[in-house]
């Protein structure tokens, strides 16, 4: 499969100097054309930071301290998003990679109509388009996500939460990007609505052929909807595998823990983490494998040496990677 976005050794810090916390550490991850890549991990594991980092949307004090994000455009040669000039970055944004902050109720500007917010993207990226065709495109996108076009002149507060999310999906697709990132924050909408909207996005992906990075706490959603899953812990990717493989036979004890604690359809989200102990403190990360204080299988090298992410030493280890001393890497990733 052809890659569309390759994250290589990405590091993101919050703050500067000694006080800095490393929220994303040495992450390498590849998104292939047309696939849905799921990213899961407990709250605070750095999922959003990774998403903001690779799109350069980090607000201070967040800063990228190293790495590359190689984008493969449909035509032309690959380039590093992190090295783009401000101008080139503006052109890259939304046209190549769009973000949907799923569940975020405030993604739409409350003082402008839906139509204005759909068309200003077109105005910025395709200035030659006439107003008439801009409006036509905006209406087309609303239809695509199942919203009646007479809502064009509605203001965000006049739409329900689910409709607003669908508007955001429509907006994300208006420039036909190759990559759509969906980030679901801790305070998500209800699970049924989420499933429905996600299902819709996956349908659209099959028709329009973009790739999706889907970020969530909810591994059950990922198992159902994604092709591959990457698990994050303490700012690092600790395991990555095809969805079915990970579901059947997760190698990393943390992934197993996550899988063993599928959340109830309703109820507090905390139950998700059936793993004893609490997520690591980024400021004082444990030495060695950062999961070792909580790991039921921790043994002698775990507290001193960091396991690298790589192809595990098992018979059918191709196409997956893990960072755990139980399965020392044969070929490190990145």
């Amino acid at each position, binding site marked *: 499969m052809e890659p569309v976005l390759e994250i290589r050794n990405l590091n993101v810090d919050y703050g500067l100097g000694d006080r800095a916390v490393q929220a994303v550490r040495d992450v390498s991850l590849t998104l292939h054309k047309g696939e849905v890549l799921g990213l899961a991990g407990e709250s605070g594991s750095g999922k959003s930071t990774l998403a903001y980092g690779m799109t350069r949307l980090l607000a201070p004090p967040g800063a990228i301290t190293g790495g590359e994000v190689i984008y493969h455009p449909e035509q032309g040669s690959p380039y590093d998003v992190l090295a783009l000039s401000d101008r080139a970055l503006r052109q890259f944004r939304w046209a190549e990679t769009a973000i949907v902050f799923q569940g975020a109720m*405030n993604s739409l*500007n409350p003082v402008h109509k839906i139509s204005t917010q759909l068309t*200003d993207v077109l105005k910025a990226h395709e200035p030659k388009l006439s107003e008439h065709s801009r409006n036509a495109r905006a209406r087309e996108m609303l239809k695509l996500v199942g919203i009646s076009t007479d809502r064009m002149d509605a203001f965000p507060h006049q739409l329900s939460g689910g409709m607003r999310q669908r508007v955001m999906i429509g907006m994300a697709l208006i420039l036909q990007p190759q990559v759509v990132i969906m980030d679901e924050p801790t305070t998500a909408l209800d699970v049924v609505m989420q499933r429905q909207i996600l299902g819709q996005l996956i349908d659209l992906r099959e028709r329009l052929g973009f790739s999706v990075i889907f970020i969530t706490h909810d591994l059950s959603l990922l198992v159902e909807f994604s092709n591959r899953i990457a698990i994050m812990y303490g700012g690092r990717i600790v395991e990555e595998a095809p969805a079915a493989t990970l579901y059947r036979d997760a190698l990393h004890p943390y992934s197993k823990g996550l899988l063993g604690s599928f959340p109830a359809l309703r109820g507090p989200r905390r139950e998700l983490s059936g793993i004893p102990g609490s997520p690591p403190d980024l400021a004082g990360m444990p030495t060695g494998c950062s999961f070792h204080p909580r790991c039921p299988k921790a043994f002698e090298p775990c507290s001193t040496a960091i396991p690298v992410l790589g192809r595990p030493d098992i018979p059918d280890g191709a196409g997956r990677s893990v960072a755990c001393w139980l399965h020392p890497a044969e070929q490190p990733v990145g």
Partner: protein
Amino acid sequence: MRYFLQRIAFYLFTAWAAVTLNFFIPRLVPGDPVQALISKYQGQLSTKSIQSLYVLFGLDKHQSLWQQYIDYWKQIFHGDLGLSFTFFPAPVSQVIGQALPWTVLLVGITTIISFTLGTGLGVLAGWRRGSWADGLLPVTTFFSSIPYFWLGIIAIYLLAGPDSFFPSSGGFDSELVPAWDQYFIPSAIQHSLLPALTILVSSVSGWILGMRNMMVTVSSEDYITVAHAKGLPERRVALSYAARNALLPSVSGFALALGFIVGGTLLVEIVFSYPGLGFTLLQAVGAKDYPLMQGIFLIITIAVLVANLLADVAYLLLDPRTRKEG
């Protein structure tokens, strides 16, 4: 719309209450304006002229309180606010009519400039926080913390004087007669510069700080991140997304400030002996000129109410969330 009608009803009620209070208070305090006038003229008035004064002031003893109240309303609708004693026999409406333009022009224009300038700088300071623009803040905070009269006195002491370009008091050169001509207008402008400058210096920082803080607050909203993610030009994100939302609280503040143009400028006009409404109010208080005081309070009340209404309208226009359907 229903909300709006409710607001209008509320303002009408408040206006009615203010006028009614204005009617009753002088009638409840011991002594009356005519007594005050009699003592002012020290027995030079005949019984007959005293009687006609009572009629003139609408304090005709033979009428019932209710009848007086009705007449009071009629007078107000005719713009008749009674006679001033300080400027006797000039009617209050005329005295106010002469003072009001000075205040409205000086403070009105200054308030608008201050709001526009302060908001503009606030947008800049908020959007470019962490840059040179942050240096603006301590300076403006310093100036805004100086009490106004002190600032005015310092300004007069430092900048005004016999040889200075800035006159220290008055609204125009005393040798001139008020008229719209090439002598009077420049003189009036020259006299207004120093008071205007001090008002500006003391008020602009409030707008800057308010707008800057709102910009900072709004900048962390999701829709700003989305606007960046959409690759919109920086200007559009800053103005149409951030500033447009950050402006909302400032706009109602501005409308209210317009309401206080009439009432809130006492100090300016006193320090600079500026012939506006505040200065006139000071004179009225000094002379126990009740009709004039009443008239000025009425104007102030109405101005504040109109400003509140304006704030509501502005909010309705600027924030779609306040516009309920139906």
